[in-house]
């Protein structure tokens, strides 16, 4: 029995060793956080800013009850050389919604840095910071085809300028149906969407610039995928070139509910990637172009 005694002694030692040496990894408690939401679009007016707080995950969520009033909101603009040239003061239009004060004519400038600074006097002057560099603008240089028959060989195509930057561009495409009705939905969307109004404006996943064909003249050939169209008829297509904050936020957003639909294990939830100091949310920017297209219903077979 000596062997067994030794065996169990070793087991007991190891067991005690591993138990006592293991780190504590306990569930932490909910902490309320400030949430910022604002998007700057190049050559458009300074945007509104929403300020709110999170709620506990399993409580009734009512955004109007989570808004934060009394914030002192400033946005500083820095030139391409990095020197601050302007500061915009925001005023609270209604609870939680802040608008720039007296700068109606000021447009968001591409390639400029905008730094958000929020002070909350009611919370011991808690500070929230975020910063974005507005992407350069781009334009449609040629409309190859703006009207076609759905799922025909002739695709809707545009050639767009490739804006210059330190990295390749990331695009999100948004399609807004201009004459939506439940009777002119395309078959896929009709099948998957219960309420046609939810499909009036749809968007694509983030698409990298390298996914498009580069033309010899340096422009990019954009072929609009059929999945972008939920309705026949006229639509407005907007292409957004997004900044790093928007890129990180929207690329991590689909995977935060732990449903196993990603490379994360089912049940594992990682926070969305925020670039907000002192809070969460998004202070992003983008540049955009728009085009109107028309989609004809294919003839019945």
């Amino acid at each position, binding site marked *: 029995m000596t*062997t067994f005694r030794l*065996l169990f002694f*070793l*087991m007991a030692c*190891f067991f005690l060793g*591993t138990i006592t040496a293991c780190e504590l*990894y*306990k*569930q*932490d408690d*909910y902490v309320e*956080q400030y949430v910022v939401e604002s*998007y700057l679009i190049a050559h458009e007016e300074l945007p509104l800013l929403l300020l709110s*707080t*999170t*709620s*506990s*995950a*399993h*409580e009734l*969520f009512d955004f109007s009850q989570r808004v934060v009033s009394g914030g002192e909101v400033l946005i500083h603009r820095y030139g391409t050389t990095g020197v601050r040239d302007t500061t915009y003061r925001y005023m609270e239009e209604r609870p939680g919604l802040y608008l720039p004060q007296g700068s109606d004519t000021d447009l968001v400038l591409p390639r400029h840095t905008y730094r958000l600074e929020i002070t909350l006097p009611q919370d011991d002057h808690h500070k929230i910071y975020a910063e974005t560099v507005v992407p350069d603008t781009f334009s449609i240089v040629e409309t190859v085809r703006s009207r076609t028959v*759905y*799922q025909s060989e002739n695709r809707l195509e545009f050639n767009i300028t490739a804006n210059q930057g330190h990295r*390749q561009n*990331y695009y999100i495409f948004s399609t807004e149906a201009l004459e939506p009705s439940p009777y002119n939905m395309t078959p*896929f*969307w009709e*099948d*998957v969407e219960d309420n046609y109004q*939810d499909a*009036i*404006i749809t968007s694509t*996943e*983030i*698409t*990298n*610039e*390298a*996914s498009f064909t580069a033309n010899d003249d340096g422009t990019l050939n954009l072929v609009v*995928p*059929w999945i972008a*169209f939920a309705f026949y008829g006229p639509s407005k297509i907007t292409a*957004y070139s997004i900044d790093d904050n928007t890129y990180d936020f929207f*690329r*991590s957003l689909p995977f935060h509910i*732990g*449903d*196993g639909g*990603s*490379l994360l*294990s*089912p*049940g*594992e*939830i*990682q*926070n*969305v990637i925020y670039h907000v100091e002192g809070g969460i*949310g*998004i202070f992003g920017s983008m540049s955009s172009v728009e085009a109107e297209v028309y989609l004809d219903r294919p003839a019945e077979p």
Partner: protein
Amino acid sequence: MPKAYYLFLSFFLLSSIPVSGADNPSHGTREESLLNRVTINGFIRDAENGETLIGANVFLMGTDWGAVTNTSGYYVLRNIPAGTYTLRFSYMGYENHFEDISLGEGESLRLDIQLKPGGYTLQELVITSKREQEERQNIGRASISTELITSVPAVLQADVFRSIQLLPGVKAASDFSSGLYIRGGGPDQTLILLDRTTVYNPSHFFGLFSTFNPDAIKDVSLYKGAYPAMFGGRLGSVLDVHNKDGNRYRTGGTVSLGMLSSRAMIEGPYGGGSYMLAVRRSTMEPVLAALRASQDNIPDTFYFYDINAKVNVDHWENNLLSVAFYTGTDKVSFPFAEDANLGLFYGNRTLSINWTHLLSNHTFTNFTLTGSEYFNEPSFDLAGSTFERESTIRDLSFKADIEWIPSQSYEILGGIWGGHKVFELKDSFDENMGMEETITSTYMSTYIQQIWRPAIRWKFNTGLRASYYTNGDYFRLDPRISMEYFLTSETRLQAAFGRYHQFLSLLTSETISAFDMWLFTDDGVPPAYGDQYTAGIKNTSLTGYFLEVEAYYRNMRNLFEIDPFLSDAAGMEYADLFRFGKGYASGFEVLIQKNTGRLTGFIGYTWGLTRRNFEGFNDSRYYPPKYDRTHDLNWVSTYQMSSRWSFSAVFSYATGQAYTKPLGRTAIVNNPFDNNTPNMFTVGRVNAKRLPPYHRLDLSLSRKGTFFGIGEAEWQFQAINVYSRRNPWFYTYDFDYNPVRVSKAHMLPIIPTISYTVHF
């Protein structure tokens, strides 16, 4: 690399070099001329079908001399003093064979032996030699018999990986996954070899089953950790699977009808050797066709198949030649909505040509030419917009191994493994090529391994493996050492250390393995590496029982995985596709096994702790992966009620899997891109909560009989999860409700199955 590391390398290599004439003194004096001693060598085979037996034992009765057959079924007894002896040959599940021999000085004896199969479950095995099953009980090593694979209850069909998941230290991600999670490592950390050839995605049916057809398999060995220098290329473990050679004496086969798939195998002799052909195919089409008439969303196409074939040439006494071939494919076409279709098409093909040559009676060589291809071509067609991926690995390699046994107390093994891998990835959306990557890499590894028994009670196994990958110009050294001390004739203390490097990473989902894709090291993506420390004790003091306790600690550094938040890889630098991290795992395992009597089986228990850390995730803190389970218990038993009836039960219990509890929520209310107002959770510590414990009882009842006098037949009636425990898999959250509605995704409910097998 630190100087201390090189010092350590030098020390352990030098320390293990045996002194001259280091044969155990108990076998003769050093003065006695080795020239006067004799050598006995040969192959041990199954008497009924001629299959070589891997890990069979040879024992020179009345002495401590013994040997174990290698993976070719070959043994050597070296430097035996001349005299008259009785040799005993034994193997689990076979009758012992005794051979009286008388050898004069300097003589050699080639003794090929055939063992008759016996009912091992009823047979009383008497352990008399400490060398018995020594190899099989090396530290970190586990073997699983094909009898166990086909007898334990299994989900819809017998499966190799499902059986392996019952062993301590091995976990499954879920009821739906056959992936092997061994000692804190993911599926990519296990090297899977079929007839010495790497298999890259050994799964069928979304990952529910492994590709290995139990009818075709002869031997399954698992090195759970601290594996020796003869293997390499993975951080964690090695699964070494060998297919049957085929019956060398008569033509026979097996036909098995199951609910999910059916199998057929034929084997037999031909003029120069033997052959084996095993085919398995899913048989769901009639069911799907019937469902399609009344249900929507039924796949148009859904099948899998695999074919194993092997041909042996036994024409020469000192040469064995074999050609093994495997191919397996899964195909699915699933129109999940109007104008939308999901397509899956993936599979593996392997080919190995193996030549075993006896250079002398104590020098054994093996040369293998291997080819392995894994392809995966998933596609989504959404409203005429098509996403297509073509991912392929082609791996052509050459292996040469030599095993030299200069004395009974010293063996030296060495080898090289060189090859050329080509990885191709093409992603396209709407016929536009998004990502097109081709990585070719030439690799070379070489190892030297020595097994030294300086005294009766001691055994050292040291080795060094060097690997070089041209991609990134990575050269790495892996020292390995293990030692054993025989406390008594029934008790062995074991310890091992090893460093391991891994030059590739698997893009996979625990939910479904049909999209699995491998990625390699390259510039900016250095290989992952880790150290393993293992200690254990093995005891056989109770007749018919085997007790094993092993403890382990391992770390993992430079882990590289595809960034889970990657949205579109087009145009990105290769290194930017990855997230880099580290991890560690520790635990201990207890295995109590009963091999004799009507009631056989084992109880395996694992206490484990696994952590991962990736920069930028979970605030860069360590966190447990989902498959981390503190306690894991499996009880496997088979009761032989009579020669016809047998009953098996498997009970499993495990700590609930880790999951992340949402703490807060918010919403994006001013989305600039579409109508959606995305809701978001905020979380604290990732995977800090646990699901309820997992437990399940599976039962199987088998009846053996005959099939119209043609052959033996067996009915199997099985029930998985007999009390239909609704084990949760993960929680889902529905934001259409406010407050958010939480529901559980469950694992398998009760599943009854029936199968009928005929052996002819």
